[in-house]
């Protein structure tokens, strides 16, 4: 079965630097000044990945996807100051609009699963790229954005 990308991942925003809880989280072993990058690396390492994969044409979470999402949920519950954005992707050979909808459906399934595992809904947003970001995205494609002044971290995909 060909794996299709999906998403999930990390996020933190420059605004986080102002959050009291965050400043205390020093990670001396990592020589990275940017706390967002530190958070991202920690999230990816603890969750077993920032991306989960789907069967082509399907938005059903696989067992493997559930395992990764469960680890992500655990991490997010320990980091209530971090928000993540789940970016869903459609299949590259799909038509434009169905790919958009399928990506949105995949992102929503992942988001719903995190919420089912007791991650506060406000901590997780979801969007779709459809087939606009071709190829398996690497962790470096995760974007940090600020939305409405709220800290937003991206889960990727």
């Amino acid at each position, binding site marked *: 079965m060909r794996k299709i990308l999906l998403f999930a991942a990390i996020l933190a925003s420059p605004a986080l630097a102002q959050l009291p809880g965050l400043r205390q989280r020093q990670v001396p072993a990592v020589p990275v000044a940017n706390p967002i990058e530190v958070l991202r690396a920690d999230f990816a390492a603890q969750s077993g990945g920032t991306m989960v994969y789907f069967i082509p044409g399907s938005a059903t979470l696989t067992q493997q996807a559930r395992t990764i999402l469960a680890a992500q949920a655990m991490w997010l519950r320990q980091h209530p100051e971090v928000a993540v954005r789940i970016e869903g992707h459609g299949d590259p*050979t799909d038509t*434009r*609009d*169905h790919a*958009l909808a399928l990506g949105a459906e995949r992102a929503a*399934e992942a988001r719903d699963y995190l919420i089912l595992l007791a991650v506060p809904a406000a901590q997780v947003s979801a969007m779709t790229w*459809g087939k606009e970001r071709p190829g398996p995205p690497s962790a470096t494609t995760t974007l940090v954005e600020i939305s409405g002044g709220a800290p937003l971290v991206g889960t990727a995909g």
Partner: protein
Amino acid sequence: MSASRVLLSALVAASIAGAAGAQPSPSATVIALPPMTSPDSGTKGNESLAYAWQATQLIETDLRQTAELMPLSPDRKDYYSFPEVTAPSFSKWRERGAKGLITGFVQQRPDGRLTVGCYVYDVDKGRELGRIGFVAAPGDLRRAAHKCSGLAYKAITGSPGMFDTRIAYVAETGAPEARVKRIAIMDSDGFDHSYVTAGETTVLTPRLSPKGGRLAYVSFQGGVPQVRVVDLGSSSQRPLLPGNAMTFAPRFSPDGSKIIFSMMLGTNSDIYVVGANGGMPQRLTTAPGIDTDASFSPDGSKIVFESDRSGTQQLYVMNADGSNERRITFGTAAYSSPEWSPDGNLIAFTWRFGDTRRVGIINPDGTGEKILTGGPTDEGPSWAASSRELVFQRTDPTGRPGIYRVSLDGSQPRKMTIPQDGSDPNWSGAMD
């Protein structure tokens, strides 16, 4: 001298007006197109004749784009006098095998503008089929000529011409992993090309209003895909709906008063309709799964859309209020991105099986399915106003998308000349 410059620019215009002409089908109607004339005399007369020759060449280029009409090449030996515009010599053209004849004139007005007149005749019967006249600035001679082409096309085929129409599409530049996408719009002959968005955010699926004055498209500007509506005259634009719901796949109703679109609610995509100027959206589908890509029938009474409720994408037709849903495709392939033809007789779609995508047509009752293109990466067909031709997107083996036209007569698709790569083409109806 100035006349020869005008002539030169006309020839250049004709050569960039697009891809090679359509292969005329054996049943194409032969049209005589002698050089248009002028009542003006002297130096002015020479200038007017240069304009007339330019218009004649533009009409020839237009008609060569069609599969239904085959113009005889204009020959300067066939010049006629101004009175002969309305009293042509039918026997001469009958002998040369022409079934139709286009005559016309260009006259310069004191205010610097031009009066352009065109006449279309049935050569066998010696009868006028139609006439049309304009006062136009010299810079609008091209559009006047397109109107003449449209008159001839409609007189011979009964269908509206697609010569004075616009095509919107997504202009693509940059590396595959970092595409810059801009909404672009041009006249269907490739002229008057301009960009509607600046490329700072990803944009998709421009859809023109029936007369080409407004455009709906999808933008990622707010972080999620959302439909926006642009007035092309004033360049003012706004989101279709307030809020942050994901909306996509917009299309105008045939009268331009409404926009039909898709909206995600949780894991479900359904079809909604809302006034083109806003208001409360009305939900039309409720099935679980992805319902999207809705398109109105030309009388506004029905809607075709795709749904994967059966497991694969298939086409469905329902009434405009959402009632009486009926599935019309039952193949093992997937059928998607339907668009209803302007004459109401056909629905174009993207056919997908495995990784192969092709463009096809089907009757609204589900009979008469026909695949028009070979693929393997063809998608997103949009009808010409004539209902006899489609524009669609084809991606080449290196991953670069281009815009192609294909006639329903089985001829090969032709690539359109645009300044960069292009995707998601959409063809307007005839402009006013």
